[in-house]
């Protein structure tokens, strides 16, 4: 195995897949990446047994071969080489070592046998569809912040992808708030398909996606999802569980409707949050005629107050929230105007871009 490659052509795909490699390993080979070279192509694979990512890079005049090399070290070496450097990589099959040479720098890396490298079983696809990359990216970016982290309700530690006739939807919730984004799509599954992609798979996948409308080929099996892009193949196990009935927790008949300028509201809340309790992040929202007041205080009894002009003419209401949840939702709204629909002080608040129902955020209040 022997090939030459420009630093940038190697570094970018390496950095994209190396996030999969866990820093602490149970199996030594999992801290390596699998390198497979054919005449005209280099393919590199990283895995943590749950998520697998393959990056493919075209080569000229390569000598075929394969091995596994330490992932972090090859990334660090590539990154530390000067811009534009040409890197020559050679496998010494006898000594089972890889030489990385560039200019006057030489590195000798250990290898591990490729047979030790775990490969994901070939998945038997039960449903296939294709989605423009930018739309998949949009669905994830608008929702993934609400995923739970290490929750005992393990099925919340991931992102729900729901594919029904003509529609793809992403939903994430940690039980305190929920984010949902829906997009039209040319799909016709027999039944509505629900899969839960684990948190790590979601955060790694989004790094592969760009803003072009190049198609992402998606295959779903009983316990895997496989997504093929031009230069990458992404495979992730699915969470084996049932996502809660999220539609039931989206209130349909809230009687208090607020319309506000998103950026004004967001900035006011950012300022208020400075003096909220650092641990609980609670703020009080008071609604009255055309006015939204935000108020926070901390254990030192310092206090912040903001008056925000809004479009509101309903009953007065006082309600508490974790300000981070409000800010996350407002941050995900791309429109200039945002609507907030509320019930009473124990009922959830629905945040939506004004006049756009493709993204919905539901936030449960906090008792203050």
């Amino acid at each position, binding site marked *: 195995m022997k090939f030459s490659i420009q630093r940038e052509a190697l570094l970018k795909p390496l950095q994209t897949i190396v996030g999969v490699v866990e820093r602490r390993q149970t199996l030594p080979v999992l801290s390596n990446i699998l390198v497979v070279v054919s005449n005209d192509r280099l393919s590199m694979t990283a895995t943590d047994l749950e998520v697998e990512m393959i990056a493919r890079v075209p080569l000229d005049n390569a000598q075929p071969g394969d091995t596994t090399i330490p992932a972090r070290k090859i990334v660090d070496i590539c990154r530390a080489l000067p811009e534009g450097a040409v890197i020559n990589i050679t496998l010494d099959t006898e000594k089972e070592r890889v030489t990385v040479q560039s200019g006057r720098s030489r590195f000798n890396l250990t290898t591990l046998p490729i047979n030790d490298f775990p490969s994901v079983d070939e998945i038997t696809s039960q449903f296939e569809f294709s989605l423009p990359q930018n739309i998949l990216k949009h669905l994830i970016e608008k929702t993934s912040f609400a995923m739970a982290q290490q*929750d005992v309700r393990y099925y919340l530690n991931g992102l729900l992808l729901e594919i029904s006739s003509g529609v793809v939807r992403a939903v994430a919730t940690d039980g*305190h708030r929920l984010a949902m984004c829906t997009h039209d799509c040319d799909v016709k599954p027999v039944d509505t398909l629900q899969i839960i992609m684990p948190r790590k798979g979601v955060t790694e996948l989004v790094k592969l996606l760009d803003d072009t409308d190049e198609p992402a080929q998606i295959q779903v099996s009983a316990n895997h999802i496989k997504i093929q892009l031009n230069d990458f193949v992404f495979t992730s196990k699915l969470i084996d569980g049932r996502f809660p009935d999220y539609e039931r927790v989206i209130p349909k008949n809230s*009687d208090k409707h607020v319309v506000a300028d998103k950026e004004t509201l967001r900035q006011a809340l950012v300022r208020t949050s400075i003096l909220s309790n650092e641990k609980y992040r609670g703020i009080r929202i008071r609604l009255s005629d055309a006015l939204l007041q935000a108020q926070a205080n901390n254990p030192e009894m310092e206090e912040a107050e903001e008056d925000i002009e809004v479009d509101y003419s309903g009953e007065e209401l006082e309600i508490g929230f974790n300000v981070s949840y409000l800010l996350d939702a407002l941050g995900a709204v791309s429109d200039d105007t945002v609507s907030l629909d509320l019930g009473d002080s124990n009922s959830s608040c629905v945040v939506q871009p004004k006049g756009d129902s493709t993204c919905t955020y539901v936030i449960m*209040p906090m008792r203050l």
Partner: protein
Amino acid sequence: MIIHADMDAFFASVEIREQPALRGKPVVVGGRAENRGVVAAASYAARQYGIRSAMPTATALKRCPELVVLPGRMALYSEVSRQIQAIFARYTPLIEPLSLDEAFLDVSASTTLFGPAPQIARDIKQAVLDELRLVVSMGVAPNKFVAKIASDLQKPNGFVVVEAADVQTFLDPLPVSRLWGVGKVTEKKLHARQIHSIADLRRASAPFICQHFGQYGEQLQQLARGHDPRAVITERDAKSISHETTFAQDVSDTEILRSVLSNLTEQVAWRMRRQNVRGRTVHLKLRFDDFHTITRARSLSSRTHRTRDLWHTVRQLLNREIANGLPPIRLIGMGVGGFDAEESHEQLDLFDVRHDSDANPGPARSEAGSIDKITDDINRRFGNKRLSRARGLRHPRPGSD
């Protein structure tokens, strides 16, 4: 000074009080022999036949055919237990109940008002007898450990005071089995090393004890010297709630471990709900056959007192240890800490039923929360452990053969 108050044959005594015809007769409260029941409490008349609590009822009946076997009335005992605690509370707010029938009382701050600790103990003993017609044995000592030994020493109707200066002379002649946590297995190990009395243990070299019993041995030696720094902790002040069980024989069967852990988790969760506290950190404690003890902890994303959430977390901790390979286990325990000091700042949950309101009929009914509520209601009404999770039944009930 600390008082340890321990009711004499509590369940049986309450039954005899209710049915005076039973006075002087051998009486036990427990499950029926036909149902492979065990004795929960035995009157002192019954104990003369060698009948002990945790003995199968069938065995007890063989030893004493005229034995009166009564089914337990947990609701009644709980009520009487509350009356007893109300008497304690006249003398000190620092009460740490260990179970329905025993409690520690810290009376150090009560002496100017009610006289010296022994006097307070006398007064309580008399009040329990006069008002409830029940006998309580009292141990009065500078710390919890010595007070507990003292209350047990002259049972029934015991009353033992150990002044600070007398602690060592009091402890020295006692057998090591009197020490907290020393059961049959540890006793045997100590005997094998020529350690019979508490004095023997106290005089043994620390490295020797450490070599054979590890950190636990150090604790034992501290106790043998009469050192016990633990304070009386009222339920209200508890920073964590935990339960643990020492097995009569070391256990390797992981199903039994899971089953016992499930029971412990139910007890802890029930106490949390009763005190209305929610915790964030879940601990698992394991002591191996070589006395080496490990604890594992995990934090939750939000505070809870739901049995199911606590169980899932502690089960994960146990499963991980099982996967790593476990030596035989002599003690298993679980606890929950990280309580919310501030009642406010309660983040409501989307999938929780409590927060339903007319404006928002949304949230799905929370199954786990309602199971807990029903279980608690039934157990409050009909006595503890009437309703429990089936996985907790896989092991023989504690104490049965």
